[in-house]
């Protein structure tokens, strides 16, 4: 479903050009669970932004479900994000002073889903990530970190996207809640969703079925984790 060909990204500041991505090519099939791992400065965030259609590459081609999206305008990219991609961020990015339910309904409003159907869809999505129904009308800032991230995942899922893109989703969580969140991603993958996980921690990447190592804007390794481990196995 994703194919990138020789993608580069160059940032210019004044006369200085910084080449963040130096010609990256790979493809990801439907239903894969891929971790993109690399140290900070490796270009993984830039790659994630391009994969998430938040940014366009300086050169190269990006085919998302067969469509070349590398030269689309802002609004055309917004359309793809709206329909096809669900984001999960390190800092959750929930709307403050807004109820859990309303946070999850938000993408549906932009997708012009009829008003009457929205709450039902949002509730289903929240239940699927294991959030208790008693929490639905709490304000987002009253939740614990783990709950917030699960609300964020529910929000990412609510439009039924074909790709879930998670940027350091456990970065702001303690290891225990982090594990719960990772389990959630695994379950989503089991249900057939494509998940891309960006992280700089190896043990988190081991949850995925495939790992792409990035360093200095280049892929240095692309391996299949033949037996992706469970949380318990990693602990041992």
């Amino acid at each position, binding site marked *: 479903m994703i194919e990138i060909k020789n993608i580069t990204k160059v940032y210019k500041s004044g006369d200085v050009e910084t080449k963040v991505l130096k010609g990256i090519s790979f493809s990801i099939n439907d239903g894969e669970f891929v971790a993109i791992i690399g140290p900070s400065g490796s270009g993984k965030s830039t790659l994630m*932004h391009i994969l*998430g259609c938040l940014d366009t590459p300086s050169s190269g081609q990006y085919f998302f479900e067969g469509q070349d999206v590398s030269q689309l305008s802002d*609004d055309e990219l*917004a359309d793809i*994000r709206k*329909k096809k991609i669900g984001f999960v961020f390190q800092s959750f990015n929930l*709307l403050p002073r807004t109820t859990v339910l309303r946070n999850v309904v*938000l993408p549906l409003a*932009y997708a012009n889903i009829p008003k009457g159907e929205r709450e039902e869809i949002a509730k289903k999505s929240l239940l699927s990530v294991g959030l208790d129904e008693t929490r639905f009308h709490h304000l987002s800032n009253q939740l614990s970190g783990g709950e917030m991230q699960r609300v964020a995942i529910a929000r990412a899922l609510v439009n039924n996207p074909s790709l879930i893109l998670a940027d350091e989703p456990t970065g702001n969580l303690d290891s225990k809640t982090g594990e719960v969140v990772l389990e959630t991603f695994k379950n989503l993958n089991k249900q057939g969703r494509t998940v891309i996980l960006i992280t700089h921690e190896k043990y988190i990447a081991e949850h995925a079925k495939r790992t792409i190592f990035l360093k200095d804007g280049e892929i240095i390794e692309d391996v299949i984790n033949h037996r992706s481990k469970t949380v318990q196995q990693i602990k041992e």
Partner: protein
Amino acid sequence: MLITDLLEETYLAISANKTRSGLTILGIVIGIGSVIAMISIGQGATGSIETSIQSMGSNLITVSPGFQRSFSQVSAGRGSAQTLTIEDSETIAKEIPFVGAVAPELSRRYQIVAKGKNTNTQVVGTVASYPSVKNIEIDQGSFISEQNVSNQSKVAVLGPTTRDDLFGEGTIPIGETVRINGINFKIIGITKSKGGTGFGSQDDMVFIPITTAQKFLAGADYVSTISVQAESPQVMTQVQTGITNLLLELHNITDPQMADFSVLSQQDILGAASSMTNTMTILLAAIAGISLIVGGIGIMNMMMTTVTERTREIGLRKAVGAKRLDISLQFLAEAVMLTFIGGVVGIILGSGIAYGITFFAGMATKISLFSIILAFSVSAGIGIVFGYWPAQKAAKLNPIEALRYE
């Protein structure tokens, strides 16, 4: 996004920070309120001036003396000439077609004394046709008759205000005596109140026969104005030109520029007065408009702060699929909503002020639909104008940078 979503978002955003929204709205409330109040004062003044000019009489043409030029080059100012005479007025009545009634008058202010009380008011020497020309009605007794005029009788008709000042409210002092300039006049009638207050009120006057005024008070045979009533509004211009030509001939003046009189119709006076009050209204509204602009800048300031504060939220909205238009509409709607609320409250406040001015200061005010529509569209317009820049700023944010914003 549906419009209802937009309104809901706007409501939540405005109510999230009630104090700040309230203070920002207050700026617009004061702006709109003062525009409404000022326009209503201006239009009220226009209205009352127009009414008092209309009440002077219908189809009225006034002939007044011009500059006094005959004896020297020094002009004593318009109206100072003593060139109009009763003969002029009689000739007008005789020769000009479509003239209903003609009333010459000789007015001057005198101190009037009655039973120890005294007042200073306008004494109008005139003829029997004056009430029909000037729309004056008699309340008690009778007006000056032609007999009185030809006999130079020392009789007087009081306006109701003058009567109140000299004899007390509601009294009927017919048969009593007033002293004008040391001469006793017998009261024969009281006119009906025409309303209107202040300088030039037709209720605060004393009417006496013009011949009496010329002989005993002024000691000269000129008249200060001649009021002419045309038969219908259609013949006004014709009558006006007729009078001008006739008087030029009577006064032996060949060059119309040198005329020692002026002929003004009621429309001319009305036009001059309305253009004056309109200027005043515009001036007042312009001053009030400045506060509206200041209020608008307040809106822009708040929206700028809001956009900065909510940068991450904007980033997230973009990440979940909001387009530029969605974002800019959201912030524009917020600005317009703020000004709209300010506009509604401002209209209520402005109307309240106008009502208060009428109630406490007795000044006429008029809240027109026009000024309300104007205020509404101006407030919505201000929302759009001052909300546009912040909204564009929000819409153009890069989602990646916005999401990372701390």
